[in-house]
């Protein structure tokens, strides 16, 4: 072989090696950005159908329905690609709480409904393994939304199994909050089974028994507003009633409170209750149960700090209004924070005098009992003066009953 041939071969080999190296580098270029083995969004062909890759950056600048749809798609990609989906949901939850903008936290519950429902359908989730797939946290935002989405997906099986089996499923929950969440999820499921029609769905809640029916109804009304807004793959009803006074005024007595509670949460976007006078104005003209339920709902869209809510309640002049207002205290907002804040909140019942302060201790004992799974009895009630302690403990004792105005 001539020297010339050797040199040409050497040149060719150098170019070949260079090509291979460049090719390998190019192929590995997106490795750091992958979700499982899917390509990153930035590498998809322009004009090709956009594939979710778990990149929330693609949602930047999108608001309202578009924003939520984008987050749903990208978070679904993250959960679907996870080896441990529940850990992914809990990690997303932690990130949502830490994010100072608050957008994901505020929207996460509804977004996770969709993420979980689609995940359940894709993995062919059944009633048998439902409980193993539910989050084991008391978080009412992302995690509870994920739980409700999973329950919604197995609705036909729940119907087939009957109310007794359904109740038994929720009883298996690790904590009281998780049991509440399970029951609320049934409400969503029953609405899907009945094409978003309230009367037959509420009837299915009734069949769960009086201990569960009102909390199931909370899920019913939640799904009703999903349907009104066309969210989570629901079909918008024809001529839906969107005035809470008209809607809740026509509901069976046992479901009036859940109806109002959810109506304010879902319809009063942008409105924040800031004073007793504002509550008076919102609920003007209503009487009895309708008025009480309205007042509870009105304070739910009040300040995020439950202490500030109680301060507004204390400015109301009618005893029934005050009691109804206390029922709307968002103790859930204290979750994940120093438990001392729950004790401090109990002490805020001193804002009220006489019997009303005991009413406050009792209600807060009940709902703080739910979010602490009963621990508030030792950590909070036990620190109170005698009468307050007894009221608080009575509240904790009642936490296994229906919560009615809670979510």
């Amino acid at each position: 072989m001539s020297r010339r041939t050797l040199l040409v071969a050497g040149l060719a080999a150098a170019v070949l090696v260079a090509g291979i190296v460049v090719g390998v580098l190019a192929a590995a270029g997106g490795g750091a950005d992958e979700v499982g083995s899917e390509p990153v969004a930035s590498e998809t062909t322009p004009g090709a159908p956009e594939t979710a890759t778990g990149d929330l950056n693609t949602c930047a600048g999108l608001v309202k329905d578009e924003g939520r749809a984008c987050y749903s798609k990208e978070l679904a990609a993250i959960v679907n690609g996870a080896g441990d989906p529940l850990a992914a949901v809990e990690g997303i939850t932690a990130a949502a709480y830490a994010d100072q903008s608050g957008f994901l936290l505020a929207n996460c519950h509804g977004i996770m409904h969709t993420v979980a429902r689609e995940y359940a359908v894709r993995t062919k989730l059944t009633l048998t393994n439902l409980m193993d797939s539910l989050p084991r946290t008391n978080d009412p935002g992302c995690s509870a939304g994920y739980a409700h989405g999973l329950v919604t997906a197995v609705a036909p099986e729940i119907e087939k199994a009957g109310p007794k089996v359904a109740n038994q499923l929720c009883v298996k929950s690790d904590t009281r909050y998780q049991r509440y969440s399970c029951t609320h999820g049934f409400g969503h499921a029953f609405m899907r089974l009945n094409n978003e029609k309230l009367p037959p769905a509420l009837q299915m809640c009734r069949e769960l028994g009086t201990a569960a029916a009102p909390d199931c109804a909370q899920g019913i009304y939640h799904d009703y507003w999903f349907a009104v807004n066309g969210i989570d793959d629901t079909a918008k009803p024809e001529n839906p009633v969107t005035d809470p006074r008209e809607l809740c005024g026509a509901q069976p007595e046992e479901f009036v409170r859940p109806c109002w509670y959810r109506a304010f949460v879902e319809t009063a976007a942008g409105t924040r209750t800031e004073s007793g006078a504002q509550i008076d104005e919102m609920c003007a003209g209503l009487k009895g149960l309708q008025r009480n339920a309205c007042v509870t709902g009105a304070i739910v869209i009040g300040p995020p700090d439950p202490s500030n809510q109680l301060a507004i309640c204390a400015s109301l002049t009618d005893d029934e209004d005050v009691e109804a207002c206390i029922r709307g205290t968002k103790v859930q907002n204290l979750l994940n924070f120093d438990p001392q804040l729950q004790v401090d909140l109990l002490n805020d019942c001193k804002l009220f005098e006489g019997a009303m302060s005991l009413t406050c201790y009792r209600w807060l004992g009940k709902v703080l009992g739910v979010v602490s799974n009963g621990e508030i009895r030792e950590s909070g009630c036990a620190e109170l003066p005698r009468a307050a302690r007894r009221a608080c403990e009575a509240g904790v004792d009642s936490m296994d009953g229906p919560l009615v105005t809670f979510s």
Partner: protein
Amino acid sequence: MQHTFFTSTRRWLLLGVLLALGVILTSVADRRDRRAEAPSNGDFGTCARLEGDAARACYSREVGRELQAVGGRPQLTFAAPADATTQVTLTSIEGPQPLLCDLHARVGVMNAQVPGWLGWTESLVETTPRS
């Protein structure tokens, strides 16, 4: 003649090798740049291989990184209502937003332990205990 040929061939060979090296170095540099520019994208491939607490921490970190990059638009802020002197509440800077679950919104959370409202400078709503 032979000498001229080898000189020419060596030149071509040297040029080829230099070109190849140039391409390689450019690719490596480009890849490094892309890595440096990409911290806003979560590394969910790594998280997907983990389970339990390790996975939770990983997803929390990576989703948090993306949220930070997104900037959380539309932003929610605390603002004092025009007609009140004391109460601070939750508002949206982009007008009414159909927040699905603003019941649980806790805007202003500073970290996992301290709620933002504890840092508010505004005093709480004035209260009059009922008689």
